[in-house]
């Protein structure tokens, strides 16, 4: 009981932190440049590694993509995860992203090296379920983040700004996931 309450209070503190970070960093940015500019094609491209589950859900397969070099770290994360959400043309590579998944916003909390990923409601509502499905949904994101952004120590999932206990009922995502320990 106490445990739950505390978990919740840590979590709430985190959300508050995330919102503060959002307010401080994002609001001025949104004012100065439109979201379309995030996608700006520069000559500089970066090779990134995207992780997928294989067709039989018993291993990971990676794919290298080229994405534009973004100006900010959060934008870069967004561009990389957009590649995962887009999925692969190869039918043996399963992104395990529920239909309609959108990554609304990314926040970087430098102090705790926590990457906060705010997804839309479809991410949980349209998740087909099954622990293996849920495992790859989380793992593909965590592994893709780890492979391309070594500075990230923790990943926190939010759904439209709120914490959730789990994505499909098996794995706890209310607290940040330790990238190195995720298995």
């Amino acid at each position, binding site marked *: 009981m106490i445990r739950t309450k505390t978990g919740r209070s840590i979590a709430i503190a985190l959300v508050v932190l995330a919102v503060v970070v959002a307010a401080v960093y994002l609001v001025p940015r949104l004012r100065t440049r439109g979201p379309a500019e995030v996608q700006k094609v520069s000559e500089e491209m970066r*090779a990134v590694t995207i992780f997928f589950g294989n067709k039989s859900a018993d291993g990971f397969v990676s794919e290298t993509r080229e994405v534009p070099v973004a100006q900010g770290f959060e934008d870069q994360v967004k561009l990389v995860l957009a590649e995962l959400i887009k999925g692969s043309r190869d039918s043996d590579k399963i992104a395990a992203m529920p239909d309609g998944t959108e990554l609304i916003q990314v926040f970087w909390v430098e102090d705790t090296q926590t990457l906060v990923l705010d997804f839309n409601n479809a991410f949980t509502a349209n998740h087909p379920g099954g622990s293996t499905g849920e495992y790859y949904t989380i793992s593909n994101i965590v592994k893709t983040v780890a492979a391309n952004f070594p500075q990230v120590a923790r990943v926190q999932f939010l759904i439209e700004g709120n914490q959730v206990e789990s994505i499909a009922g098996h794995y706890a995502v209310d607290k940040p996931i330790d990238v190195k320990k995720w298995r």
Partner: protein
Amino acid sequence: MTTRPGSVVLMALVCAAFLPCMPRVAHAAAAEKSLGVVYADGRQTEDVPLAKLDKDSDELFVSAYDLARIFKATKFWNPDNRKLVLRIGNHRYMLTLDTRVVVVDETPVLLRMNVRFDEGSIMIPLEFIEGVLAPRSVEKIALDRARLLLSIGSPEYNVTGLEIVDDKDGTRALLALTDELLYHIDSDTPGILRLKIYGGRLNPLKFTLPEGKGLLNRVRAEQVEQDAYLFFDVRKTVQRYRVEFEGEGAAAAAAGKKTPRKLVLFLERGKLPEIPGADFAGKKMVEMLDEGAKRKMIEPVRKIAIDPGHGGSDSGRMGPSGAREKDVNLAIALMLRDRLKEELGIDVVMTRTDDVLVPLDERVEKANAAGAQLFISIHCNGWFTSDAEGFEVFFLAPARTAEEAQLARDENASIAYEKQNASEGSGGDIDFILWDMVQNEYLTESSDLAEMVQREMSTSLGIRNRGVKQTGLRVLKGLKMPGVLVETAFISNPKEEQLLLSPEFRERFIESAIEAIRKFQGRYAGKG
């Protein structure tokens, strides 16, 4: 998007540089070689084509495309001055086509060979990796020219060495570990002893010995996701085997300290009494358990908690023909409850008996409060396509070690200090950590139960065995007893959905679960 003059030409050239190297490989067929790349960051090991481009030199070249990918470089190619800029880590490397000069940040360095353009690719001599990148990299970069093997990053192996000693009593394989890790050994395949080290990380190349010694024919190692596997191919003259941690250090390990340990596999020769039911490689063998495995649980199991996954508004996974996971879980769980009572006289606590949603924490609390001695959660699996199949068994990944828990406590204490007025929950954090530690205590039992359930299911279910896995499943956290979660089959697979609905399949599952519990009783309750 801004359009610059010449950008089309630039894009075309960049694209050319990105093209796969097929024409070049065909052209350089005589000198075709490849570089094996081993990553520490989870990327798959791969082979990258190399080319020998100079008839007067043996130097091999790698394409800029592959190089940038391997080192996750940002690359920028300027066709006007024929310069390629790579940003790797904190350094900027500027290479110029048909020259030997590399400008690292502001300092020029000379290569022995020119960077060149060949069959549509910018080709860089391997010397660049060895002499320029490696000394400046934060990550460890090691190029083995003899074997053409490049390894990147320090993987922090925790299974670090293997030594084989043979004497008159038998053969010993000594595995050096940086910490006491959980393991499991089985001999399901005749002649092969399979040692699984949970959370073990090893370099498979180093542990694969084509020629053994004494009773050991050969050793093969694999890294499968987070766990390490060693396969010992043993002689038929082996009479018995056992595995244990060598010597002292057990006390330190029990206190949660990280201590280097030696895990020893003993293979013994000589005539020993035959033990029924332990058939191995045509001989009778006995598996002697390590000391750690038989310490607790001397009481017979009298009460088991059964947890039918999902329920109420949470239907779990839906099958292609409409079967709902929550219903299948409940039906199987109720059947298991009745049979456990009948056949083993065991009391059963159910986390739910109706179609209701019970929060995960509440399920754990119910089992704890009832004083259950084992916890079995029953689920059906699901995947994004209909392809995945089989059953699997999970137990909880080790929570924090004592050291990490202390660190977390310190962190929590400082957070609590900073937010003195925010809430009164600081005592709860410590509670939470203690709960984590409680589960660590049951790791060996949980792993054994999981392996036993898996083995029984493997012989009776007739579907693919996906093995035993360790993960951070929410419903197993906080249990004051060994616990496993069973994914009986994939309800998302049409064939397995039908199986899950069939009484025969359910019966086979119930039988294997009962048999596993019986064996678990035998292992733990029979000793101590």
